[in-house]
């Protein structure tokens, strides 16, 4: 009887210490969301400006540049998948990986051989376990990516994009990242980075019509210099957005873990109390029974 009580108390203590951990992780994740969102906002002016400039250049020059021109016979496509380094983030990484697999299927059906570039330990582990070839893996910064991290990923991609599919490089670059819609909703999305998808509309873009630029030294040179910056800035934006989503997913997962721990503690406490009461009742009835036996014997 007393053994049962001890067992319940032990379990309560164990759940309590788990709860402390999940609560701490929840709070850390919550503060990281805010930080990541602030960094997304800080990175926006640069990303917007560079996209606007490229659109302006592409819309008024007739030169064909790899940045904006579709290759006639694409044979290989790079797929960048952004996942997390650590688990305990609910379905965050597996959702991103599922979206990536859809994209890979689609690329295969179009006759393009996908080439994997994986960011985050979870994704690397996933593909390695399945014996898939990984062309590039980048880990250790999924929660707090810096521009230098985006650059290291971008360098490899640009080199293989410039080399083109026939000579072992790639003809297209796709990115799968997780968009932060709200604290409750994060959706994995797949986008094509290169060649650029230009929005061709007749409506004047926001902020007035695009000006007729002069180029220094030349339009080609400007586009050449813009290409890596564009890829890096888009990767950086995707990584930041994913970091915010990862933290949000982790916060939610840890919140439900903490709630579960509380429920468990409540039900164990109830059972422990009952066990204690049972033990007392039993003891009383034993004493009463013993006393009765003594008095009836005398």
């Amino acid at each position, binding site marked *: 009887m007393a053994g049962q009580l001890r067992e319940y108390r032990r379990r309560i203590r164990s759940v309590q210490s788990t709860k402390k951990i999940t609560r701490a992780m929840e709070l850390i994740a919550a503060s990281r969301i805010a930080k990541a969102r602030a*960094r997304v906002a*800080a*990175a926006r*002016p*640069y*990303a917007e*400006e*560079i996209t606007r*400039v490229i659109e*302006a*250049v592409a819309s008024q020059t007739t030169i064909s540049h790899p940045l904006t021109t579709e290759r006639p016979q694409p044979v290989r496509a790079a797929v960048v998948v952004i996942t997390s380094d650590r688990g305990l983030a609910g379905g965050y990484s597996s959702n991103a990986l599922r979206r990536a697999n859809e994209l890979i299927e689609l690329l295969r059906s179009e006759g393009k051989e996908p080439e994997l570039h994986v960011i985050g330990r979870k994704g690397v582990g996933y593909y390695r376990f399945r014996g898939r070839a990984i062309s590039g893996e980048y880990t250790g910064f999924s929660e707090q990516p*810096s*521009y230098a991290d*985006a*650059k290291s990923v971008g360098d490899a991609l640009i080199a293989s994009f410039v080399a083109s599919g026939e000579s072992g490089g790639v003809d297209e670059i796709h990115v799968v990242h997780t968009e932060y819609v709200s604290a409750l909703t994060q959706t994995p999305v797949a986008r094509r980075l290169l060649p650029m998808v230009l929005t061709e509309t007749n409506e004047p873009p926001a*902020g*007035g019509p695009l*000006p*007729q*630029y*002069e*180029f*220094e*030294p030349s339009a080609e*040179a*400007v586009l050449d*210099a*813009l290409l890596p*910056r564009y890829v*890096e*800035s888009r990767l*950086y934006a995707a990584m930041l957005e994913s970091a915010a989503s990862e933290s949000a997913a982790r916060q939610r997962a840890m919140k439900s873990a903490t709630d579960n721990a509380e429920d468990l503690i409540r039900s164990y406490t109830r059972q422990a109390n009952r066990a204690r009461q049972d033990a007392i009742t039993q003891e009383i009835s034993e004493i009463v029974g013993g006393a009765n036996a003594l008095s009836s014997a005398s």
Partner: protein
Amino acid sequence: MPIRVAIVSPEQEVWSGDADMVVARTTDGDLGVLPGHVPLLGVLVPGGTVRVKTGGREISAQVDGGFISVTHQGVSILAETATLS
């Protein structure tokens, strides 16, 4: 009539404000931008300095791997790294 100038790096906006003149070194040579300049897009030399003259003051920034984009709305300096000096 001042021009709106913004110096932005990928991680943050380094400086923004109104200026009377911007001087930057492109791969073709020094370029001075006064109000009313035609729209222009230039590649800046690596490790160059951008000077922004505003009122009596002059602000200079070390920029690396950057562009200058001049539009009717203002001037943007896009740099991979930019530090005010």
